[in-house]
């Protein structure tokens, strides 16, 4: 425990800027993965344990596109669109067959695909770790805001994640399709009776969830090493975020992710040997005091 370091940071604007930005970066990447997870759970009532694989595919798709085209924009697009398509195929071919089944059955199918997807990545890209490299446009010195260090690439990352959060939130709240999705989540039988193709909605939501995880993977690719199985640790943290925020709640995923990001960032100063533990401790405290998470609703 190093509370002096934490106190000294909290009283220094430079440190506050650096650590808050660091927390936002960690949080926003987690949010993109977790919001897909929570969306799929909210609408399809499936705990998609294979969700981390979409993050992994997003990173690999982005790296390949970047190597082929040299365009960072295309790399991000490939990561997002590629995983959306993959999500759609996966949902139609496999997941749609286990809806309504026992949770254990769903988990087993998902876990089988975690291993299968890892092997597929190993076969296509090889078992060794890879690096995409930072695009030239972002190989620039960091910005200094109030004395704190802020890399320009991370500002882009935070910006993209915030835009995704806003579009998703507004889209679900205001658009017609958003209303249909919410209706399908609430009462799929009624939506189906109204002549709306729920299969299409489910496939679309799964693809959207996959796309968000893929987008996170693509954005992370320039700064994280790519390796088969890389989605697993992200998945665990995303579950923590989802559980803290409340399963099915998009706002909960955002707040949960930001809290986890900030806990990690400031926790590394004050509790350097307990940063991971701090995250789990926070989850336990939230669950004990509010079993449905911060923004979760009781299931009748």
């Amino acid at each position: 425990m190093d509370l002096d370091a934490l106190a000294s940071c909290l009283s220094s604007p430079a440190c506050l800027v650096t650590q808050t930005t660091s927390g936002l970066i960690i949080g926003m990447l987690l949010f993109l993965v977790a919001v897909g997870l929570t969306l799929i759970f909210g609408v399809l009532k499936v705990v998609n344990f294979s969700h981390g694989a979409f993050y992994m595919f997003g990173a690999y798709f982005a790296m390949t596109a970047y190597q082929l085209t040299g365009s960072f924009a295309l790399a991000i697009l490939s990561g997002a669109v590629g995983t959306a398509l993959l999500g759609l195929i996966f949902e139609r071919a496999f997941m749609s067959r286990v809806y309504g089944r026992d949770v254990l059955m769903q988990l087993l199918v998902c876990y089988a695909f975690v291993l299968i997807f890892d092997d597929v990545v190993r076969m296509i890209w090889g078992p060794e770790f890879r690096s995409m490299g930072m695009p030239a446009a972002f190989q620039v010195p960091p910005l200094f805001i109030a004395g704190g260090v802020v890399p320009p690439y991370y500002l882009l990352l935070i910006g993209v994640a915030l835009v995704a959060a806003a579009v998703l939130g507004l889209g679900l709240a205001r658009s017609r399709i958003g209303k249909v999705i919410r209706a399908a989540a609430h009462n799929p039988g009624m939506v189906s009776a109204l002549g709306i193709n729920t299969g299409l909605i489910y496939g679309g939501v799964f693809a959207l969830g996959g796309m968000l995880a893929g987008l996170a993977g693509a954005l992370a690719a320039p700064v994280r090493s790519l390796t088969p199985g890389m989605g697993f640790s992200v998945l665990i943290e995303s579950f923590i975020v989802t559980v803290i925020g409340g399963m099915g709640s998009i706002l909960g995923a955002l707040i949960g992710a930001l809290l986890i990001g900030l806990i990690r960032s400031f926790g590394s100063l004050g509790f350097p040997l307990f940063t991971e533990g701090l995250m789990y401790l926070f989850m336990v405290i939230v669950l004990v005091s509010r079993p449905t998470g911060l923004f979760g609703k009781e299931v009748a």
Partner: protein
Amino acid sequence: MTRTRKPGISRRSTLALMGAGAVSFAAPWAARAQAKTIKIGMPTILSGRVAQLGTSSRNAVMLEVEKVNAAGGLAGRQIEMVIRDSKGQPQEAARIARELVNTDGCEMLLDGEASSGSFAVHEVARDLGVLCIHTCSEASSLTADPKQHIPNAFRCVRQGIHDSIVGAGYAAGIAKAKGLKKWATCSPDYAYGRDTTGEFVLYLKKFAPDVEIISESWPKLFQPDYTEVVTKILQAKPQALYSCLWGGDLTSYIDQANIYAMFNQMEVFAVNMADYTALTVVKNLPKGIHSGDRYIKTFPPTPENAAWGDAYKAKYNEYPTNWSWQNATAVMFLTEAVKKANSTDGKKVAEALTGLTIKCPFGADGTVTMRADDHTLVGYAIGWGTTIPQEPYVPDVKAGDWKTIFELEAEWKKSKGYT
């Protein structure tokens, strides 16, 4: 009701006789097969985040085994490698090692496990009494601690304590020249990371007493994001940083530290950087990172080392790794020990290995020795230098002095109560 046996030969007896006949016919074949090939078992890590190192271990072993077999094998017996994936899990490594000996009939073990798994395999070797050469674990206690010692196990691997003595000597020289007094450390939070960092700091302070460690970071092994660690180090404002992160963790860390321009703000000493696994993967390799040599074909700067590196690349289309040269050296040792013992009997080979010196492309003076008193490798090329972003990546490596290593290692062993 009681059963009565019919007179004559029963069905069970007939089957037993047929079985015995089959065994007696097959036995000479089995014996001949036994005499013809010698099976060597190798548990190693072929999947997961360390798979690249395990694969490079297997490649190096096969490169050498093919040479041995082409030259007639071990005492006339062709080598058959039985290589299994432990997935980096100690319990799996131990299970596989036992199975390789008991079920597959392997007469020797090459243990291609990282430190965590090698201790588990070591216990299997202790239990079964089979000859075992560890080829990847750098944790010094594996051979330095007398409690671990068994006559049938050897370690053909560089050692953390050797690296720390050489690295700290090199770093202290730079620290004194540039006035680097405030240091930070950032290493993985497991036995290798903790031990190696502790040993490096111990000798750094011994060689440069002014040095002060102002920040320590212990990210977990295979952590995907190092942002919080990078910013923490930046906050501490050290003049120099030591890290023994390795593989994908090191490349992630460098990529993430790069965008904070960390390498312009402090001298970085990353012991595991100068290995092709990291050097060729990092896209924007910063110039001027100080690193210990792991495997580079230009150190030791001999034609034999360069030729070995090129031969490996020609066969596998990539450069070897630190684990490669260690595994290759183990096969070289086995070959010479069998020649010396004129036998493939594990006990006799173990006796021959003890204190054996062989010619080797990776030796500091062209030879390496399996030290008799603790069954560990000494005399290998060891040094530190600074990186450049293209081949040869570390153009000038300052070689460590084995006389100093031996002196300080002896002191260290004494301080740990090992001698």
